[in-house]
């Protein structure tokens, strides 16, 4: 019974790494696309958004998990939203106090973390059903995976759109910036290209697994005959 033992395993690295790659929130689950498309026009914005999301995700999911036996089922979504909104308000003020430029660059999207599908989705689907340590580990993985995806987008968009990375000029001063990459269409195009790459990798992996299984089956058949 391999399945049963896997789900009974209390803690392993799998919980953490799932969000990073196999169940990446943006590239695989397509959650939280609004900030993904809106604020990734530079690496620094992507990083800030990612850090804010990690903070809100980890704290709110931990609290939801700790309170999971006390939250009535009927009003759970409302409760989650209140918990998430608390942490979003904190992040909002923290970013404002650290860097006003960053705060202005991210604009309304910090407040909009409240309605990020990823955070609410994880609260309802994972935190409400799992103990606190597992929840925190999983939320950390998801948050890092989200940040990774944002930086993937922000990197390409900043590199092509401004010829720089993290504000440092990469190409020569004569570089012709692709203005479209800093505009919303650029976000859609780059996200599409990344999704294409990730789906292609996944497809290749599964087709290899299938081929390997077929080879094993074939050799077994030869042995039995």
């Amino acid at each position, binding site marked *: 019974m391999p399945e049963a033992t896997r789900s009974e395993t209390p803690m392993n690295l799998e919980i953490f790494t799932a969000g990073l790659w196999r169940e990446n929130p943006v590239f695989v689950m397509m959650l939280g696309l609004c900030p993904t498309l809106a604020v990734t026009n530079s690496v620094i914005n992507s990083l800030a958004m990612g850090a804010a999301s990690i903070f809100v995700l980890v704290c709110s999911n931990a609290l939801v998990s700790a309170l999971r036996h006390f939250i009535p089922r009927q009003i759970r979504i409302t409760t989650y939203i209140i918990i998430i909104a608390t942490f979003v308000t904190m992040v909002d003020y923290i970013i404002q106090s650290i860097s006003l430029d960053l705060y202005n660059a991210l604009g309304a999207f910090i407040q909009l973390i409240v309605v990020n599908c990823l955070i609410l989705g994880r609260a309802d689907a994972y935190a409400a059903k799992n103990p606190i340590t597992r929840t925190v580990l999983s939320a950390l993985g998801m948050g890092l995976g989200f940040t990774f995806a944002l930086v993937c987008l922000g990197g390409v968009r900043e590199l092509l759109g401004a010829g720089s990375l993290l504000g440092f000029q990469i190409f020569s001063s004569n*570089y012709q910036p692709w203005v*479209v990459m800093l505009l919303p269409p650029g976000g859609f195009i780059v996200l599409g290209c990344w999704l294409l790459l990730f789906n292609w990798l996944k497809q290749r992996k599964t087709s290899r697994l299938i081929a390997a299984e077929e080879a094993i089956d074939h050799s077994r058949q030869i042995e039995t005959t």
Partner: protein
Amino acid sequence: MAKHHPHPVVDLRTSPYIRRAPSVDQIMRNVVYALLPVCAFSVYLFGISALALMLVTTLSCLLSEQFFCWMAKKKSTLPDFSAVITGLLLALTLPPGFPLWMGAIAGIVGISLGKILFGGIGCNVFNPALVGRAFVQAAFPVAISTWTPTFAANRFSEFIPSTLALPFMTPAATAEWSKTVAIDGFTGATPLALMKFEGVMVRTSDLFFGTTAGSAGETSALLILLCGTYPVARNMMDWRLPASVILGTAICAEFFYLLDPASYPTPLFMILSGGLMLGAVFMASDMVASPVTPWGIVLYGLIIGLLTVLIRLFGGLTEGVMYAILFANAASPLLETFTQPKVFGGDK
């Protein structure tokens, strides 16, 4: 035993009596033939830069099509000539001094984003050449609105300085160069820009014969109309489509002209200037992205004409044909649904 008579007295044939419809590659090849005079005139006006631009865009379209066919392990679709049309049309809508590397990118984006992504030939929602052009319009707004004069001296022996920009590098400024090579005073603006920003009207005859600044192949209304008659005569294009685009433009422009003749241009100017003729005859008529129902075609054309005038008069850009056609492309499935002809004997 039936004996074959060498000279049949009555020439009898079995049904069907209708001849085979032309194949895709036949139609596409004929559109390329129709485009060749426009290309030749463009080279005559703007010199080897226009020729190089056409070669580069066509080549990049062909190569990207071949690449994606190879990626998908499909039979190559190069022999159907559709990628050649995309490349040529793309070059004809770009400024003659457009940097070649940007032209190559426009071709790649047009084919990949505008055509392959939707499933290749026959499935594209938008005209691929215009998708490529819209991308570079948004990516390189300065380069795509830098115009150079016609009949420049030495146009057959030297390139426009911006043409040969190194890949990913900012092209050289052409304003000084344009002043030295132009025969008479050149302001670096197209007739539409002159109308919009300076209130200057270019002579109608210049627009008609195409000796004004503008995109490589859009300048001569007369030549484009003449070339358009070829596919129409061979029954490969519905004449109602370009006609309704022009009609839509005329109605809308006439409305504003009657409102205030002092500040709005004449309908004739609207029809002959910019890319409207090229758009109406060769762009809007993309066989895949335009409707097929008779009334759908007319509505589609009218929408393009109307939107073009509105964008030109009230938009931030001087030219609106590209966005008007892309918008109408998106609306064409809806137009087809609304204008389905009644089937004979079908439900009342």
